[in-house]
């Protein structure tokens, strides 16, 4: 697999990049810890390279069902007040969030 990830400095940068993608704030201590953890785990999972899988189809689901459709009929959903009952902030039947567009 990708050679450059074996270097821990590069891997630390990857941890920062991935944490950003995952929307998780990371402290420098976290980066150090997760670089170590991720390095060990990636080293372990690289053993999958021992297998020749070129002609193998991937399995996304263990059971052979695809495109399950239901009848397009209206049915009651969660009542509005209940859908908002766990909201950290709500007003006028809406979730309140910080301003996204200036």
């Amino acid at each position, binding site marked *: *697999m*990708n050679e450059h990830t074996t270097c821990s400095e590069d891997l630390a940068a*990857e*941890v920062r*990049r*991935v*944490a950003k*993608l*995952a*929307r*998780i*704030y*990371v402290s420098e201590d*976290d980066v150090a*810890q*997760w670089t170590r*953890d*991720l390095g*060990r*785990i990636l080293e*372990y*999972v690289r*053993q*999958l*390279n021992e*297998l020749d*899988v070129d002609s*193998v*189809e*991937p*399995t*996304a*689901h*263990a*059971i052979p*069902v695809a495109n*399950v459709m*239901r009848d397009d009929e209206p049915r009651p959903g*969660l009542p509005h007040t*209940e*859908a908002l*009952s*766990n*909201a*950290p*902030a709500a007003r006028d039947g809406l*979730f309140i*969030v*910080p*301003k*996204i567009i200036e």
Partner: protein
Amino acid sequence: MSCSGPVSELPSLSAALDALRRNEVSSEELVSELLRTIECWNPTLNAYVYVNSEEALACAREADARRRAGDPAPWVGVPIGIKDNICVRGQPCTCGSKILKSYRSPYDATVSRRLREAGAVFVGRLNLDEFAMGSSTETSAWGPARNPWDVDRVAGGSSGGSAAAVAAGMAVAALGSDTGGSIRQPAAFCGCVGLKPSYGRVSRYGLVAYASSLDQIGPLTRTVRDAALLLSVLAGRDPMDSTSLDVPVPDYIAAVDQAPDDLRGRCIGLPREYFAEGIEPDVAQAVKAAVADMARLGADVVEVSLPHTHYAVAAYYLIATAEASANLARFDGVRYGLRVPSEDVLEQYERTRAEGFGQEVKRRIILGTYALSAGYYDAYYLRAQKVRTLIRRDFERAFQQCDLLLTPVAPTTAFRIGERISDPLTMYLGDIFTVPANLAGICAISIPAGLDSRGLPVGLQLMAPALEEARLLQVAHVVEQTRPRLPRPPLASRASGGSPA
């Protein structure tokens, strides 16, 4: 009631159902006794994270009234414990996470609805690894569940609270969820029965998703028959889960009740890769003893090979974490759960998730995001999915040679609290015998085999092809009858008794 000794004998689910039906006990008496036991032992074991005393008693009284009025629903007044990642309307569902600390489910999971309609009473919420990510219940934000056989040891995970509660008499039966062994391994560690149904057998609607292609809800019980009873309520197609299968549900209770006395005509496969080095001698010994008994009962025991077993943990931890990274994106502090407020929405997401999630959950989200991210997808995620195909084919070939597979559940018995938590990879490697069934979508059960030399339970795993739960339960029931009956767990530390570390 005194809290000084081991728990009084609580009935199995089968016995509780019979006693209620014959009016030998009321639901109120049953639930009261359970609540007293919980009050005594939960401070030690931390199996429940929430006990629903008042409401459970009210429901029990209502159930008794319904029964007196002739309600034929079979489960009226039967108390069930629910893992804290399965929604029960009006109750907390924290998933063992700070991020859902104050969450209350506005709806029932399909399994909860089915149990409710059958008449069951929900007693409380059972401890788990945070978002079911762990093998010891130590990643719970509410502290670890403890093992009733030695409270210095883990109850296993992630359904550690469910297993500890059933083993200690704090639940008649419980629901867990199994993504990579999370029902079977804690059942083995605590000396109870744990069934992971085939993928698609039980609806996942209302189960907080960890890895959607692997997750399955199932029972933790005292006996195999109890597992059959619960599965008969849980199983079946649900329009709310498009991966639940529209196939007939066999009569699991009949499968157990009509089980023959022997195993003649059954072919049991022993996959040689599951008996390789790394298993504790006592675990290997317990499985061998069961094999000998099965052979004595007429089973045809053959050695088979599942050649890709060695790669299952690597494939599992890439697939499960990739799916988790997507599933847990919903915890963003907008619609429910913790919010760490900020003027900037991006910063709000990042701070909320950093503060709300624990270390193991973040570690898995990071790994899963990495495995899916541009440049690494083919090398990690896609390759893991291809290896999943190889593992699935291993089972297809093995099941051409035998009816069921018999293996250990885990390489060791329950380990000490704190022993593995700082070493994620060592923790992951303990899942080697349970993750393949999830990757292949087949059904598997853990039943008690006996005790090791330290007095800790050892589990036996039986695996059957997808949707063959009736076969699995029937054979498991026969094997269960051959195993020594476990004594009551001591509910104490063994270290003070001077047993070797």
